């Protein structure tokens, strides 16, 4: 479907649902109706499902994450990467044997420090998605060079490509596809507050039209001491503190927003604390809490364990790890970063099995962009397409998805210095994950507005 049909489809879908709900003719703005639309979508929210976005801040060096392993490919890789290349003998233990053989007899290996993820691949719970990235529509290298098709705005810029990955718009975007999935399921959840939960701070990914991202620390929801207990001995002052910081404000939008956030913080804290305390604080599975990503995923796991108390049937989570912008020190720092990713995801995978929800929770990695395959001596520079992993019991894992890029510089798949032109759009991944969550095909443009630009709307990597 071409994007030109999108408007009509949305209008038709809206009208269908609006008339079902008796809303036709009301003058409220579109966004206000989304909760009502979500109500109509509630039929799709049977059971429990959750999506976990694991964002690698700074642009992960995909070239040393999923590494060419067959001898000719590794030779090409080593010739290009020089001192950055991981020697082939160090990759033997993490070389992957996919259930579906790859074209050209090619083989790939995970980075050695991603070894904790190999069992999940072998067990069919981890899939590797090759060369995915931001696009407006399918794009060839020739079209890129000629600028003859629309390209994602502000390519190669960290903040903007993070935003485009998450929200299909550069910095300044106000809703991402995680949040827009949340929009459709708000009314399926007992409390809409716990639909989109961020354990990493702030990301546009989790903001919807209606869905508001709820931020929680790795230690849980933080109580305001001066509200929950007398302030400097005074209950009247505690009451005043609550009143000042949580009451709706008048005209000024900044004051309004500040108090809205504080009211949400104070309002949700007791619920979250009670829900978390009712579930086990730890799992048989160890999480390395010196690893910030593992700490975040442990909190996600605890929240999933508390899903009944939180009244959640559909949730989208966001966690992140920084430090990936390795223009320098790639060899010194990248393996340890990937070790954190591998360790944290492996713990999370095991914890989901422990909770019996392995097939109901899907985690996936994402990043600003991939990087150059060529070396700048001690690191790599900003690129575009990248390899990522998708993990969970519902994943048709143990195999590769997407198209294998050529291992070359200025070859058929890159736009210079081994910057991959993505062959799979983030929109396609988003639509695939949204569909698994229960978003109907007809609703998909609400979540992934550009999906009509693609003929393949579901990558098939989830059962």
């Amino acid at each position, binding site marked *: 479907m071409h994007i*030109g049909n999108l408007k009509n489809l949305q209008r038709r879908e809206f009208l269908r649902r609006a008339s079902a709900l008796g809303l036709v003719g009301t003058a409220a703005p579109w966004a206000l109706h989304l909760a009502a639309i979500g109500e109509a979508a509630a039929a799709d929210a049977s059971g429990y499902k959750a999506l976990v976005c694991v964002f690698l801040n700074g642009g992960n060096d995909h070239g040393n994450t999923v590494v060419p392993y067959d001898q000719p490919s590794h030779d090409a890789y080593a010739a290009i990467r020089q001192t950055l290349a991981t020697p082939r003998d160090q990759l033997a233990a993490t070389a992957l044997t996919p259930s579906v053989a790859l074209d050209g007899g090619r083989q790939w290996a995970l980075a050695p420090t991603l070894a904790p993820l190999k069992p999940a691949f072998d067990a069919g719970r981890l899939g590797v998605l090759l060369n995915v990235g931001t696009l407006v529509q399918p794009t060839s290298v020739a079209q890129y060079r000629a600028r003859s098709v629309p390209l994602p705005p502000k390519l190669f810029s960290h903040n903007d490509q993070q935003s485009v990955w998450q929200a299909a718009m550069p910095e300044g975007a106000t*809703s991402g596809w995680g949040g827009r999935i949340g929009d459709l399921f708000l009314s399926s959840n007992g409390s809409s507050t716990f639909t989109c939960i961020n354990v990493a701070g702030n990301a546009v990914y989790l903001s919807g039209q209606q869905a508001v991202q709820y931020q929680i620390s790795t230690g849980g929801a933080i109580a305001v001491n001066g509200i929950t207990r007398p302030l400097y001995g005074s209950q009247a002052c505690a009451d005043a503190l609550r009143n000042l910081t949580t009451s709706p404000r008048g005209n000024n939008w900044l004051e309004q927003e500040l108090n809205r956030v504080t009211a949400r913080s104070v309002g949700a804290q007791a619920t979250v604390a009670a829900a978390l305390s009712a579930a086990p604080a730890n799992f048989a599975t160890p999480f390395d809490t010196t690893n910030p990503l593992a700490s975040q995923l442990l909190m996600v796991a605890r929240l999933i364990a508390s899903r009944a108390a939180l009244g959640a049937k559909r949730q989208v989570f966001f966690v992140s790890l920084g430090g990936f912008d390795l223009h320098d020190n790639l060899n010194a720092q990248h393996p340890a970063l990937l070790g954190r990713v591998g360790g944290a995801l492996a713990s999370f995978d095991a914890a989901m099995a422990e909770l019996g929800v392995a097939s109901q929770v899907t985690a996936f990695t994402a990043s600003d962009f991939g990087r150059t395959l060529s070396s700048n001596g001690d690191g790599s520079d900003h690129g575009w397409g990248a390899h990522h992993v998708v993990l969970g019991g519902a994943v048709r894992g143990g195999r590769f998805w997407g198209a294998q890029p050529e291992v070359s510089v200025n070859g058929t798949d890159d736009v210079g*210095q081994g910057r991959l032109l993505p062959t799979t759009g983030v929109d396609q991944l988003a639509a695939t994950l949204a569909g698994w969550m229960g978003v109907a095909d007809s609703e998909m443009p609400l979540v992934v*507005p550009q999906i009509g630009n693609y003929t393949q709307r579901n990558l098939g990597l989830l059962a």
Partner: protein
Amino acid sequence: MQTSHAAPHLAVQDFGHDAPQIPGVLAQAHGAASIPPTLHLPSANLLATTVAAGSLLTACGGGGGGGSTASGGGPVAKLPPPTQPQAARFLGQAGFAAGSADTAMLTGQGYEAWLEAQFAMSPSSGHFDWLLAKGYGTAAYKYNTGIADQTLWRKLLSAPDVLRQRVVLALSEIFVISLPGLSIAWPAFAAAAYMDTLEAHAFGSYRQLLQAVTLSCGMGAYLNLRGNQKGDTKTGRQPDENYAREVMQLFTIGLVQLNPDGSPKLLADGRAQYTYNQEHVTALAQVFTGWDFNTADANADPGFMRLPMRHIATRFATGDKSVLGTAIPASADGPTAMNIALDTLANHPNVGPFIGRQIVQRLVCSNPSPAYVARVAAAFANNGQGQRGDMKAVIRAVLLDPEAMAPSIGVASGKLREPVLRFVQWARTFGVTSPTDLWNVGDTSNPGSRLGQSPLRSPSVFNFFRPGYVPPDSALGASGVTAPEFQLCNETTVAGYLNFMQGVIQNGIGELKPDYTAELPQANDATALVARYSLLLAGGRLGADTLGTITTAVGSIAATTDTARLNRVRAAILLVMAAPDYQIQQ
């Protein structure tokens, strides 16, 4: 080889096909209908919506004040000296706290005299010298960053040259380096020297500031200019692009061409135009090769960290180079080529509005009107004596603009005070000192228990918050209003801040104790006490409802003992600093 396919692009000055789109235009340009505009989905363009917000909303207040600031330089007519609340409010923008000496000078001699006196003050004792004087230049501190926190807090909490310190903090959030990102020996010394460099140039010329930043060891290490080498055709090694990209995106011109009022220059079909593309980055990376620390042994001692980096000709890329498509001859040596590149960037018409708007955001308000930005940009372009990039003229234009001086409160006016600035204001207002002179405030980054922000500890070169950040799920987001500091505002940080302040107001931090002895005598009268903190902390801007709420609550503590009076003081301070009409600085 690498630039062969790029060459045609370098000659093209109109990157129209490359450019970001405004709402609907992208789809229409390719023969398709746009998505419904109310959905706020991908085709909405930030810059366009920002312009709309700036022109339709009251922004910082919409002006309407005295209009006594010349657009091109210094004031043409002296402003009337401020009242005490006006002085307190002004010191919240130009400094950290309403100190009595600064307030007296402002109310007695006026804004201009105070600014000139601040401009004339020598920088207070330097960060680097302080680290050395403490004996930190030894192997035991080679990888220590906590000593940098000490000296950073020392000056934030105690330096008398408050305007310089405030502007330097702002500059450190534009020209960002970050302690956790300095993977070198002597990171604290790199940070200290960097802050000394910002201090040295804060009131000088932007062009010299840009050069000093570029050649500083701290920036060299942070954005990898240090050690960057020419390409090698045998191995395929390419120059590192990091500094070339970020110096354009963040320190000089930004991503899209701007009008003098900060709005994007739009083509007839509504598209914005990029200032540069990937090929320009690759070409500029060639220019930034050959630089390294000026030492034979970067491990031996930290002395080199205060020296500009040196150029090593053998590592410099040979051949023709360019900046923004303008050729730099192969004959130019490394320093000459860098000079041409920095000259070109510093002279780009974007710099005034791009940097000027950010300085307004750091000091005054989040969403300045285009006219305000244009006045600041004009001062950047010409200080009144034909000089471009005079930081003093820019600072005067930012602080004395009618929109800064006499704002009308609107839906989008003001800014959220940075967490660090709230804490510093409290500490300075209530006489916090460090008897040991070690200033162990530490890293305040923890969002759940401290400030969620710590000086020179940004998570990346993109600062703690972006100038273009628009809070989603809010009236601000619906209207595309930028409010950078809200990027740090979430359910965790709002609680973490209140808890942190409750603790420090009562206990200080370790040996850093507040001195409330001058406050206690005023605590018997709750109304006067709260009014005092409204003046000192909020520039007298708390609303009647807020004052009433706080006064009633504080007054309910019976002031019968010194302990009770102390609790009145503590509660009044915390409640003022929690109030939304305090946290949003107007």
